[in-house]
């Protein structure tokens, strides 16, 4: 294989997928697509369904589950007479495609000289799919039907002709039909762009060369992935972490992962994970697998995104567990469940390759929504505030503050913009002091914010990580856990499910106060650089008690600026104090 052609073809295929991403992000009406890139586009092998190329602008969440969806759709299409030119298949069946009902997937075959050459697929987040709660998100849903309508895999376009009966059926069952039609048109138009790009490439290189390049690309990506896995010491690495509850039944849910590394093969075994949740804390196995790759890619960012990279891995996910949802389990908690997959993969691999793996990030997407009628306009509004939080520390650095979840890139709304749009007022938006896990490198602190509503509203919150903290690694400490406090009628209270609450009525002047978790620490805090401890102390990220008891420092002098203390450490006494503490800690550990 000519190495230059190979490099150029790989670039050109990625370019096609990138252009499709950007085109949809620009053309979509759904703000979730246009503002947070909640979409993905790719090109797939028509026989194996393997990813040939996937765009670099869509959400990490979709990294691998596009391939798994296409792989499941291929036999269904074959049973229905196979792919024909001009067909476009549609589905949002979460048990098949992963994530939740709002993520709608389209698949379009591409023919060259009458022969099926590849499949294009895309996914986009549609704002509303019907169901009991606007936006589709119901924290106490017990079955999928409360979350919206299911579109089973079917031909939306048959040989170029749109099935208008299907479209009418869908638009009759959603709250924003006009917007949905716009997003549907945008998603189907994107295929034309992809086809043009692929046809140009075929014209330039011919089918045979392109196919050879694609096969070779897959082999090279597999080799590249294997070279990373081979660097992980052989062995078995186990971890169990827990969700607080499922929003309906107040019992912890276990996520158990055993990673086995043998040479350049990697097995993710989730045996031992809790069975299907009564509430919505379930995800499909396609999403579980996808998030394992997201975690790997956070550790090895250079790994290419195509089917070859997925080949050296194998999965064991017990049927009907919370990570392999089946009908009729509700799946609206996907935003939180997915984050935990990343956490446990980090936790297992931190045992094997501690120099490359960060400690646990904040681990909960904790969506808070405020809805009601705006007093100025009388119009219905929904304001969505997803948690920011701290990242885990690593060998490289302390953890970041105010991060977005590892499977997402979505941002937090501006305070001023929020107050313009909705009848709310922020009391504060700040770094949550003392919330980062202690360590040689400190975990990032969580975020702390309070929102008051200025009129009658309804509040819902779906979070986790109140009972089980984001963990540290290599002797690093855990982060502070999640905190949700509601204040209604002058009384402050914690919801019975701690960080999950559905449709709580708020009157003007009521407020909620959220403290998101930080990230876990990395390494022994007694080894933290003294200057860094002093900076943290003076920044208020840790307090004096923690500095002395956890980080083992001694303070030489204290002065203050306008009442805020400024500490100077005593390096000599700090070192003495630390060496005195080490034996204690060893006994305790």
């Amino acid at each position, binding site marked *: 294989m000519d*190495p*230059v052609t190979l*490099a*150029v073809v790989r*670039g*050109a295929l990625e*370019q096609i997928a*990138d*252009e499709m991403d*950007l085109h949809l992000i*620009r053309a979509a009406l759904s*703000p979730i697509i*246009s*503002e947070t890139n909640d979409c993905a586009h790719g090109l797939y092998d028509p026989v194996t369904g393997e990813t040939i190329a996937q765009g*670099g602008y869509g959400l990490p969440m979709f990294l691998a589950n596009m391939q798994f969806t296409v792989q499941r759709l291929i036999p269904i299409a074959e049973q229905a007479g196979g792919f024909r030119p001009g067909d476009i298949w549609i589905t949002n069946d979460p048990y098949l495609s992963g994530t939740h009902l709002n993520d709608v997937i389209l698949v379009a075959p591409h023919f060259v000289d009458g022969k099926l050459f590849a499949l294009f697929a895309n996914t986009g987040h549609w704002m509303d799919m019907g169901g009991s709660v606007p936006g589709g998100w119901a924290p106490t849903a017990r079955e999928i039907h409360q979350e919206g309508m299911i579109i089973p895999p079917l031909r939306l376009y048959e040989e170029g002709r749109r099935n208008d009966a299907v479209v009418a059926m869908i638009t009759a069952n959603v709250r924003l039909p006009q917007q949905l039609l*716009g997003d549907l048109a945008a998603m189907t138009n994107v295929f034309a762009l992809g086809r043009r790009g692929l046809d140009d490439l075929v014209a330039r290189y011919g089918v045979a060369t392109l196919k050879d390049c694609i096969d070779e690309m897959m082999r*090279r990506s597999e*080799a590249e992935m294997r*070279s990373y896995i081979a660097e992980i010491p052989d062995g078995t690495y186990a971890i169990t972490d827990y969700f607080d509850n499922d929003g309906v039944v107040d019992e912890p849910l276990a996520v158990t992962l055993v990673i086995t590394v043998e040479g350049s093969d990697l097995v993710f075994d989730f045996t031992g994970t809790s069975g299907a949740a009564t509430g919505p804390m379930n995800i499909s196995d396609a999403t579980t697998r996808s998030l394992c790759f997201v975690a790997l890619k*956070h550790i090895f*960012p*250079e790994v290419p995104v195509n089917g070859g990279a997925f080949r050296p891995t194998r999965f064991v996910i017990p049927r009907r567990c919370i990570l392999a949802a089946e009908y009729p389990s509700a799946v609206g908690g996907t935003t939180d469940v997915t984050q935990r997959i990343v956490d446990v993969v980090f936790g297992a691999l931190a045992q094997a390759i501690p120099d490359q793996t*960060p400690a646990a*990030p904040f681990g909960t997407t904790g969506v808070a929504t405020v809805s009601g009628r705006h007093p100025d306009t009388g119009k219905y509004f929904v304001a969505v505030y997803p948690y*920011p939080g701290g*990242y*885990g520390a*690593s060998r490289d*650095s*302390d*953890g*970041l503050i*105010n*991060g*977005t979840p590892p499977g997402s*890139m979505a*941002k*937090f*709304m*501006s*305070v*001023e*913009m929020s*107050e*313009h749009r909705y009848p709310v007022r*922020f*009391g*504060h*938006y*700040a*770094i949550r002091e003392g919330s980062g896990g202690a360590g040689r490198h400190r975990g990032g602190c969580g*975020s702390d914010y309070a929102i008051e509503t200025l009129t009658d509203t309804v509040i819902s919150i779906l979070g986790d990580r109140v009972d089980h903290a984001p963990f540290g690694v290599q002797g690093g400490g855990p982060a502070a856990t999640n905190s949700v406090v509601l204040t209604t009628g002058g009384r402050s209270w914690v919801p019975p499910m701690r960080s999950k609450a559905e449709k709580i009525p708020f009157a003007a002047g009521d407020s909620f106060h959220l403290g998101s978790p930080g990230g876990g620490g990395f390494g022994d805090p007694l080894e933290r650089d003294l200057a860094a401890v002093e*900076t943290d102390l*003076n*920044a*208020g*990220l840790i307090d004096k008690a923690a500095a002395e008891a956890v980080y083992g420092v001694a303070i030489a002098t204290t002065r203050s*600026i*306008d009442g*805020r203390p400024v500490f100077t450490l005593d390096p000599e006494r700090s070192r003495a104090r630390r060496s005195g503490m080490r034996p204690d800690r060893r006994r305790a550990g």
Partner: protein
Amino acid sequence: MGGIVGIDVGGTFTDLFYSADGLGVDAVLKVPSTPDDPSRGLIDALKAANVAPASLDVILHGTTIATNAVIERRGARCALITTAGFRDILELGRRDRQRMYGLTGLQQPLIPRAMRWEVEERLDHRGAVLTPLDQAALARLAEALAQEEIDAVIVSFLHAYANPAHEQRARDILKAANPNWEVVISSDVVREYYEFERTSTATVQAYLQPLVSRYARNLTGKLQELGFRRQTLVMQSNGGLIPLGQLHERAANIVRSGPAAGVMAAAKLAAEAGFTHVITGDMGGTSYDVAVVVNGAPRIAETTELDFRIPLRLPMIDVHTIGAGGGSIAYVDRGGILQVGPRSAGAVPGPVCFGRGGTEPTVTDANAVLGRINADQPIGMKHLARLDIEEARAAMQALGEPLGLGIEQTAEAILTIVNHVMARRTRLLSVEQGHDPRAFALVAFGGAGPLHGAAIMREVGIRTMLLPPHPGVLCALGCAVADLRYDLSQTVEKPLSDIAPGVVRDVLTGQRRDGEARLSASRTPLDSVVVGHAAEMSYLGQIHTLRAVVDPSWDHARMIEAFEEVYRREYGNTLGDIPVVIVSLKTSVQGVRAKPEIRPSPLQPRPAPSKASREVYFGGWMTTPIYDRTELAPGMTFDGPAIIEQADTTSVVEPGMHGRVDAYGNILIEVA
């Protein structure tokens, strides 16, 4: 008309363009920059060009000092004072991370948390006072901070854009505590909502202000010593100029002024040559900067990230940068695929052929091995007389062997791949903005741009490439052709139905008055003043806004019509009866400087004379004519393959392409 000088102070080189009569080109040169005091490099350039400052009408100037100070964190020691509960806004950002993949790494806020302070006060989104400013507490804080080592204080209160009274009062209190402080209030810098972006912009301004003021003082002093008493104008990132004397209060506006100047010059030269839709590609040692010009106007970005979580919310020419330059290093990845960049050999150790200890093969080495650059006349190199081709070949051999490639094949593969990377970014940028890149002309410049422009053009499907007369110093020329410009903006964020008649007119005419007042304060001779008004609008509930050109005299119905027209153009439809919101009103006031008009020369069609020929590799060694740029005159034609040499760059014309010199001295390359 006296002489004019355009000077671009970059990180490595200071470029100069001099015209004795404001028309012709009398000197073009590069001297090393002097980062410890950049004004010295500028004076060095004037001396090297043998320009008597007293003979000049005007000095026009772009600089990277502001950009570098932010990136290297060499700015002022600052304190930030915010509304109680919000001191962390500057560090929190808006919930994101540095890269899509990889959770490690940290940010470094320009002001550490220990120097961020709060004071009781609160406004609502209409600017109404919810909590009055606690002046006594602020005075106590100011007294305490006056004891600390601080150069500048930023005040950023929530919703101050809607009512700046608290911020203004706070400034008075702070100035009373220490008159030597630079005090920046957010509503002075950005009159728009988005607290993080506004606070960050005000912080960048304060962070740079002392440094930029010092620079302006040094430069003014040195120029005066040399007898220069006229106007010095500085390029801003919006592509317009401001007088050196106004620089201290607009320090943040000159971030990335060099790239902006390059795009302005490219747009201007292309427009003269008859191209209004242009993609500009500026390739230097470490990066490739690409921008899109539509209808003669460079696209403007409202917000630019200077570094992770350091947004600057000021109108800036939208220049996108990728790590592809002459110094980009080629390597084989774990999958056995050849890759180029973004890692760069930089100036030191530099490419292998520079003989400064570089061992990894770079793009420049590939160009040298293939005979595309003249080994006997290295550009901008004082320490060596000849490029070390043998070492470069050895590096190519080592890289290519495991891939089964020979030396020339390896070098050509490096060029193919780096060209592909640049072509890809070029295409994506235009697609992102909804354009078909094939309808554009490419202006290639920078030290390495003309070496690679032909390949980029071929890959993207562009039909015409324009090589300006002095591609290597185009940013310096850009300063010389630019006009003065002030951008003003104010958030409204109300449905049109809630805006009283006359309000739009009052805001826009007020902005016009402000801009014109600043123009007259600049004391610059102007030919004319051009005022443009625009409104950022959206449908109620939308996050993204669209900009419509508006007129102060319009009523609401006409405003809606203008918005719908833009919406239809962008998305092909409108959303019917959903109310239209004015998010902000904007005015740009441009002072068009008196400039002599450059007249086209008559074309005399004839073959261009080549000065020599050498073997150059284009898929095989080909005897290729070498042209001396100084000998090319309007009307001359030539065919590729061809190499054009000049003091500031080398241009490559591929086989199958055709070149001609236009009436302005540009070379136009077309695919035959």
